[in-house]
């Protein structure tokens, strides 16, 4: 069992999606997250075990290396792809209830900003840690975030901004959300932000990296 989870974990950490993927070069021709997860399930490893002993720890390692600038976005995207491929095999177990979803995370890039890379990266890692992700897309106005918060009671809202110029619309969105729904938890992230800004606008967390968002979310579930 452990051998399977170790191998799946390694394939995710190294971004090895499947056997046909030429990346990483030192794993060429070897099975990736896709084949290993399928094989593990066939051999009786439980979906929960794969999620909790392979995928979640692997993405935590990737997140840590990203924070330390030892990995960069291309490599993290490959890891996220590998994890997503493994998740395809686990999806039925979420549906059947064998794996319990930790909660719903609603995410979007704030109004005026069309950049989605940070949002997507965070979404993939959060999904990989057992959360259901509802992606509102880019250029999301405050009303849409509020609407989603009402549609998914108990959800956590994530807002992303890449531009210094759109931090202002993030402030507006958080303030409007908190004005109407003071208990609604809101996480903010994006290159130009910091913890002071997050606190100033009333957000509950500044997620410096996708992994810090995952840790915060998991502490709530």
């Amino acid at each position: 069992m452990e051998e399977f989870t170790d191998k799946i974990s390694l394939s995710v950490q190294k971004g090895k999606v499947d056997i046909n993927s030429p990346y990483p070069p030192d794993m060429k021709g070897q099975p990736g997250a896709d084949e290993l997860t399928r094989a593990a399930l066939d051999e009786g490893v439980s979906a929960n075990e794969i999620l909790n002993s392979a995928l979640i720890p692997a993405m935590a390692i990737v997140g840590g290396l990203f924070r330390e600038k030892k990995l960069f976005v291309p490599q993290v995207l490959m890891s996220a792809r590998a994890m997503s491929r493994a998740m395809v095999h686990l999806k039925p177990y979420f549906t059947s209830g064998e794996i319990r979803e930790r909660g719903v995370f609603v995410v979007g890039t704030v109004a005026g900003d069309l950049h989605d890379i940070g949002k997507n990266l965070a979404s993939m890692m959060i999904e990989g840690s057992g959360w259901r992700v509802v992606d509102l897309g880019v250029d999301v106005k405050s009303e849409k975030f509020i609407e989603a918060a009402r549609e998914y009671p108990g959800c956590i809202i994530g807002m992303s901004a890449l531009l210094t110029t759109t931090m202002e619309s993030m402030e507006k969105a958080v303030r409007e959300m908190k004005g109407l729904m003071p208990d609604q938890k809101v996480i903010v992230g994006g290159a130009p932000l910091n913890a002071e800004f997050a606190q100033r606008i009333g957000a509950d967390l500044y997620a410096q990296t996708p992994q810090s968002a995952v840790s915060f979310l998991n502490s709530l579930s």
Partner: protein
Amino acid sequence: MIYTPRERVLTAMNLQKPDRVPLMCQFSIGSMMQQLKPSPAEFWYDGRVFAEGLAELCSRFNFDGILVSLHGHSPCWRESVTEIRDLEEGRQEVFFKERTELHSWSDLPMVYQLEKSINKDIAEIDIENDIPSVIDYIPVSAGLYFKIDLQHKFDIFPLLTEMTNGKYSIHGEITSPFDYLLDMLGYEQGLISLIMEPERCKAILAKFAAGIGDLAEEMCNCDIDAIKISSPFAGMGFISPEHYAEFVLPYEKAIISRIRAKGKHVYIHTCGHIDDRLELMRDSGASGLECLDPPPVGNVDLKNAFDRVGKSMFIKGNIDSVYSLLYADDEKAESDVLDIIETGRRGDGFILSTACSIAPMVSGKRILMLSELVNRSGLYQP
């Protein structure tokens, strides 16, 4: 000796000290409109309105130079517009056959395509035909392009010179091949392709670099002092220094050498964290570096940057437009700027500016504070 604004900037770019530290910030489109309150659609599309705005703001805030962030305005831009609808004050909807644009004083226009375009897979890209030999667009932001009218590519430069009587240092701007690559493939596919399809990426970058180099070389024939190469996604927040050396540096270097051969200065601008690649940026052959965001947006210490690359490059920066100019109280804003002036004036070539462009809601009073401080504390000993 009293320098003209233009001489002041040129002297700093030549790694010498003029009478005082030159001041030259780049405005975001939103900040320009917040100060000028123009028709937002006209400000974006009409070259004369844009040039008048640039000249007015430079004079109003006592800057020494003007960065022309958009060029190639078409005098016939209204021909393709089907309707301009005024919404509330400072907001207009502009309708075209295939898209609608929302222009507002708050920032860049938002574009809504009637048919959503999908980025081609890198394997499907026909390098010969899909990548233009003649660059006719600027990838301004995600999903937003500025079309360059090839018959009027550089009309704005003589217009500005005429409006300002050549008083100010005028700089053009081009975009890095790396940005064109990411724009063409989409950020996600583009970044993944660096490791999955490196050779194909390089072929695409080489084609873009040739076209951008032609554009830059031709821009050098105008009465400008420098060209800025904008490369917002080449920092530590996105790619490793190894990828920078492989996918950014060689292509910018090729363009830089063509600009330098025409006798103009050239500086590179990469947002965010770039501390680990300052030497690589210096190796590009550029005459200057712009931006150098301080924490939290970036991680550059100005003094350290001067120590490492300041003998061969001028530095233009590095005021934090958001945390020092927009959100800080007066005392902190002033103290942050004075620290930067003090550090910068010890270097060989320094131009005081915001790191990234001035955020839209920064007040006129705060922008004006910059010239007051630089006149008070940025003087060089004769």
